[in-house]
């Protein structure tokens, strides 16, 4: 057991080191992509809690990014510091998540997918039509980057490190949630919800909280996006983007802690790699998605788990070890 924890700490350390060193020597564009990766990892982490841990399909994560992004944008444009604007966006997303989830989570599976799909599209419509508030199709622009006096984030690389700090904090919070008795309850919920309910797990409440927290993470990602791109418009938060975030969770491996990071990396990097194919890249991309779902349904980290099961000493069935007590 200690070897696994030690090796896991080492892995996390290496990843952190890689993340710190990644933008060194790279141009602005690469740094921008890396920052984008971090931001979407946060959004995907939130959706991973909702989907991977609590088992609820949500096609609304992009709309929560939108709520976070627009709230932060409007407040920072009005002169608020990002550090004050962001929590407002976060809280708003949490509350909206609770409000949406309370009725919506009474239905499961595809019905929830439809409700969240409809919600996402409705948010998009409001953003597009209420131009007195949101700038309509033209969006909002010129949002200032956070300024901490001695540390300004105007430079791409400085903003990257700022985002990295935020991401690490968000990941630590998520780790805390998942490691706590809540994490055990989520696992139970996934594996045998009826048994869980019969043991006193208030499945409805914990699912709702997972949904709301997941939405808040979406809001945090949105708040960061506002400052990264300094221009937001409704098209960046359409259903397609909710699908992308969902894809990140599934590609990385739903229910695995680092799945969102892996998934976000793949989903963000793949279009960059396919850029040479120009018009055809979405075609190839979507075809690859279908192929991936057919062959690697548990995501990339799911492969890792399966390999580990196969190659490390398989746990013997306990009754076989006991010999004569076989059924």
């Amino acid at each position, binding site marked *: 057991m200690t070897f696994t924890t030690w090796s896991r700490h080492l892995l996390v350390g290496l990843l952190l080191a890689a993340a710190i060193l990644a933008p060194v020597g790279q141009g602005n564009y690469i740094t921008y992509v890396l920052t984008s990766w971090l931001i979407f990892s946060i959004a995907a982490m939130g959706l991973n809690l909702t989907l991977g841990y609590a088992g609820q399909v949500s096609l609304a994560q992009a709309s929560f990014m939108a709520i976070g992004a627009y709230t932060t944008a409007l407040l920072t444009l009005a002169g608020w510091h990002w550090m004050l604007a962001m929590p407002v966006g976060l809280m708003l997303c949490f509350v909206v998540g609770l409000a949406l989830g309370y009725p919506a989570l009474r239905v499961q599976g595809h019905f929830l997918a439809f409700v969240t799909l409809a919600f996402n599209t409705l948010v998009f419509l409001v953003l597009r039509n209420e131009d007195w508030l949101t700038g309509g199709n033209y969006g909002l622009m010129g949002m200032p980057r956070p300024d901490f006096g001695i540390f300004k984030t105007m430079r791409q690389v400085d903003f990257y490190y700022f985002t990295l700090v935020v991401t690490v904090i968000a990941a630590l919070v998520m780790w*805390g949630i998942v490691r*706590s008795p809540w994490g*055990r309850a989520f696992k139970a919920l996934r594996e045998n919800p009826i048994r*869980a309910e019969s043991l006193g*797990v*208030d499945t409805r409440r914990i699912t709702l909280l997972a949904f709301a927290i997941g939405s808040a993470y979406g809001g945090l990602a949105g708040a960061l996006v506002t400052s990264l791109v300094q221009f937001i418009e409704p098209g960046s938060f359409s259903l397609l983007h909710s699908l992308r975030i969902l894809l990140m969770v599934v590609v990385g491996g739903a229910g695995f802690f680092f799945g969102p990071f892996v998934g976000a990396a793949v989903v963000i990097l793949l279009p960059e790699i396919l850029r040479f194919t120009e018009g055809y890249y979405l075609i190839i991309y979507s075809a690859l998605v279908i192929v991936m779902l057919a062959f690697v349904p548990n995501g990339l980290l799911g492969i890792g788990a399966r390999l580990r099961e196969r190659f490390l000493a398989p746990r013997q069935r*306990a*009754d076989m070890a006991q010999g004569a*007590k076989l059924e």
Partner: protein
Amino acid sequence: MTQPVLSIRNITKSFGAIRAVDGVSFDVHRGEILGLIGPNGSGKSTLFNCLLGQLRPDAGHVEVNGRDVSGMRASQLNRLGVGRTFQQLSVFPKMSVLDNIILAGQEHRGTMVSRLFGAPDAGLTEEADRLIGFFRLTHLRDTLAGSLSYGQQKLVDAAMAFMAGPSLVLLDEPAGGVNLTMLADLKERLTTYNAEHGTTFVVIEHNMEFVMSLCTRIIVLAEGAVIAEGAPAEIRANQAVIDAYLGG
């Protein structure tokens, strides 16, 4: 006269034209091990599901420790001190035995918020280990529950039902599919637990041997109604019961 732990009054449940449970009433007293038996189609399972809130009876009500529990969700019922075991798929396969049992207890400690900020094991490792030791599963403590033998899973299931210290435990065919040696173990552990903690059991079972030797009192259902009630020896000799099982 102490209040019965479980009180069932006039439970009736029909499915279309079929009356599965027809006005069943009985009490279960503290510390009893009550067996609920009857031939197939007698309404045992339907009655059981009505007790557990999985089915809503057409009429009648259920009281646990004097409190009306009709229509309660399973988690609410559990928090009132009612535990249950399942016939099948009763453990969390990808969690260790220890985790299975800690889960069974954690929801009864503190509030949802305190659980978020508290210790990962909710302070329950010691208590869980004691229960694991009681069921002689200590060597399997860290094994994934899904890789246990069927009989061992049943023991884990029982441990989970007991972890929160319920006053009443409903056991759903605990002997089903378990080999003879394990069966003897299971019966011995259940009897000992009942003696040590005074927990009340209600057992639905088909295995006659098991029921007769485990239970202190037996109620027999046939065609949705109670046809006999009494100590195991009386029931064994009861003509109406024999008729019900042999058909006619």
